[in-house]
């Protein structure tokens, strides 16, 4: 066993990181949160050029995948730079379409996948499990449907309800998230029925796993960025004539944050390797999701506390990551759901 990234994986991660560092992502995030999606879309284009959008797409649809380990590396970088938009959801949509094709229904993949792989188009996705949509009034069924991230800005809005895959005709009102760069709306019902049958549910499950992996990786990146910035601040901010990083209370809190992140990282990559090997590491994925999510939230709490009042403002770029940590922790499997999945996988 060699549980280390290959030279190529490292080089890929480093080049993405360098590209994003040079791209002024904070400005793109703020614009995305406001009225201007263009800088975010431009960023998307560059990520696509670097191959990020192709990682979850099979080769026959212009992809390079599926490559979950590379995807995890890429999404750590996306989190580190707080890249806005339906990045996870586009990956999950690609997995859904690719899996449907593998199971025999190639129509939707042929139509939609190549454009997702090249980054020409973006997608978002809402998955409602079978049990969520059975019975109840229309109103109850609607509320059981999750929000689709950036449904107002993605080119394609996909919805799975039980065993049906729809292309939604639009979306409901956009609701504000605690992270202003996350735009939440429920997809409108109806639209075009793209596929139907048990394969849809199987493909949706696979999409959900990849979404968990990508979100976990993004969380880790967010946590690492928060820690980096906070360490830098603690070295430079002085009170009582001393850099605050010299105070033991500050040191220990930062050390604990590093511990949390460094023990989440192997779970993330372990789960990615499991996905690559083709077995279904449900417990591993859930463990990675809950651990990276909690570690990033710990990092956010630490960052806020160590920055003092200045960390509590939206003016400081730190806020872009602070406000991401908690929503990511709860997206695509909140901690309670993930912990339950870990235990289910034990028996």
């Amino acid at each position, binding site marked *: 066993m060699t549980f280390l990234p290959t030279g190529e994986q490292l080089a890929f991660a480093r080049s993405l990181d360098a590209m994003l560092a040079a791209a002024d992502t904070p400005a793109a995030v703020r614009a995305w949160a406001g009225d201007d999606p263009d800088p975010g879309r431009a960023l998307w284009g560059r990520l696509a050029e670097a191959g990020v959008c192709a990682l979850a797409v099979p080769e026959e649809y212009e992809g390079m995948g599926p490559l979950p380990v590379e995807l995890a590396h890429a999404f750590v970088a996306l989190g580190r730079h707080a890249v806005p938009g339906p990045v996870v959801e586009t990956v999950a949509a690609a997995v859904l379409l690719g899996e449907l094709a593998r199971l025999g229904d190639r129509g939707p993949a042929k139509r939609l996948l190549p454009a997702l792989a090249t980054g020409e188009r973006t997608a978002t996705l809402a998955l409602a499990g079978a049990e969520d949509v059975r019975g109840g009034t229309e109103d109850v069924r609607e509320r059981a449907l*999750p*929000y689709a991230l950036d449904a107002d800005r993605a080119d394609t809005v996909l919805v799975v309800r039980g065993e049906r895959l729809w292309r939604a005709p639009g979306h409901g009102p956009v*609701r*504000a*998230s*605690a*992270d*202003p760069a*996350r735009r*939440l709306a429920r997809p409108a019902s109806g639209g075009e029925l793209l596929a139907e049958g048990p394969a849809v549910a199987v493909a949706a499950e696979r999409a959900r796993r990849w979404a968990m992996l990508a979100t976990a990786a993004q969380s880790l990146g967010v946590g690492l960025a928060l820690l980096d910035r906070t360490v830098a601040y603690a070295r430079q901010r002085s*009170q*009582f*004539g*001393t850099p605050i990083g*010299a*105070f*033991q*209370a*500050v040191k220990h809190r930062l050390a604990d944050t590093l511990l949390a992140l460094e023990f989440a990282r192997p779970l993330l990559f372990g789960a990615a390797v499991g996905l690559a090997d083709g077995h279904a590491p449900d417990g591993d994925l859930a463990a990675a999701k809950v651990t990276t999510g909690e570690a990033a939230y710990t990092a956010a709490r630490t960052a*806020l*506390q160590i920055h*003092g*009042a200045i960390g*509590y*403002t*939206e*003016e400081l770029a730190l*806020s872009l990551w*602070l*406000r991401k940590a*908690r*929503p990511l922790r*709860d*997206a695509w499997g*909140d*901690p*309670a759901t993930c*912990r*339950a999945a870990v235990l289910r996988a034990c028996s």
Partner: protein
Amino acid sequence: MDLSYTRTEEAFRAEAREWLRDHVPAEPPPSLETAEGFAAHRAWEAELAAARWSVVSWPEEYGGRGVDLARWLVFEEEYWAAGAPGRVSQNGVQLLAPTLFDHGTAEQRARILPPMATGETIWAQAWSEPEAGSDLASLTSRAVRTDGGWLLSGLKTWSSRAAFADRAFGIFRSDPEADRPHRGLTYLMFDLRARGVTVRPIGRLDGKPAFAELFLDEVFVPDEDVIGEPGQGWRIAMSTTGNERGLMLRSPGRFLAAADRLVRLWRSEGDPGDPALRERVADAVIGARAYQLFTAGAAARLAAGAPSGAESSLNKVFWSEYDLALHETALDLLGPEGELADGAWAEGYVFSLAGPLYAGTNEIQRDIIAERLLGLPKGRR
């Protein structure tokens, strides 16, 4: 030891409950961290004051009811249980007023307290500076002697609600030659609309202009607005920070009501099959009760004449961490819906995030607890 309320206390409770039942707005007003909400909360303060409920523990001559701490605690229980609005006049009532009671002149009390009680004058606290937060004594804003008063210059920051408030109180360096940073400071009050004051609102995490920076350029303050003796600012300020951390800032009533709301949320939204969440809800209930009883003990000791000391640091660490844990539990109960910024719990959560920072960070409070209550050696600071 006795946990039952006296007949006077129960009568007071009944009177407060009845008034609140008839007057608390059915729809909560907008957030007091916005211009619109600030105005609505100011109007609410006036309504409270008209029935003399705005400052129940103050002497009657200033608009209060002169009740003791026990009845103040009873009032707070009723206030928060009734779902009444947050208190926009908090900084003045809890920090400046006790300072004036201890160190102000009769003239200052008569002039300043009644409009504070009615919400006509809302006060901001102007202590922190960009380079002087935890190390407040290193502040550099100046007060320079002039004819009949002082000229204030410098930069104050993180001043809660200063974007909409009327006046501010703060400490300033009046003697730069003093041998130690804690000496040579003077405690003054000034008008936020005076010539030379520029207020720049700062957006907090959720974008609301909850606090502001104050640029001061030779702002004139007359002698009558100096509190205590010039040069004694530090001592005066420190004698009242206990209030900021202690009982008055966060009453147990507030947390009892919040724990109650949490239990209701758990019943309606929660997953009773999730034991970890269930345990955290139970812990919130237990924590509120612990804080209530701890506070009852502290109030009784104060009533018996004991000084309020480093104990207030215990309070501050407890309520700030409690408040945050309670709100985190609520958001976890809501699951993905907890992400919504306009949800009923969202504002409380954002507010609770700052609890471990303001009124002295919890790191500093833990040092105080360790050094003053446990007698551990003083660390390097």
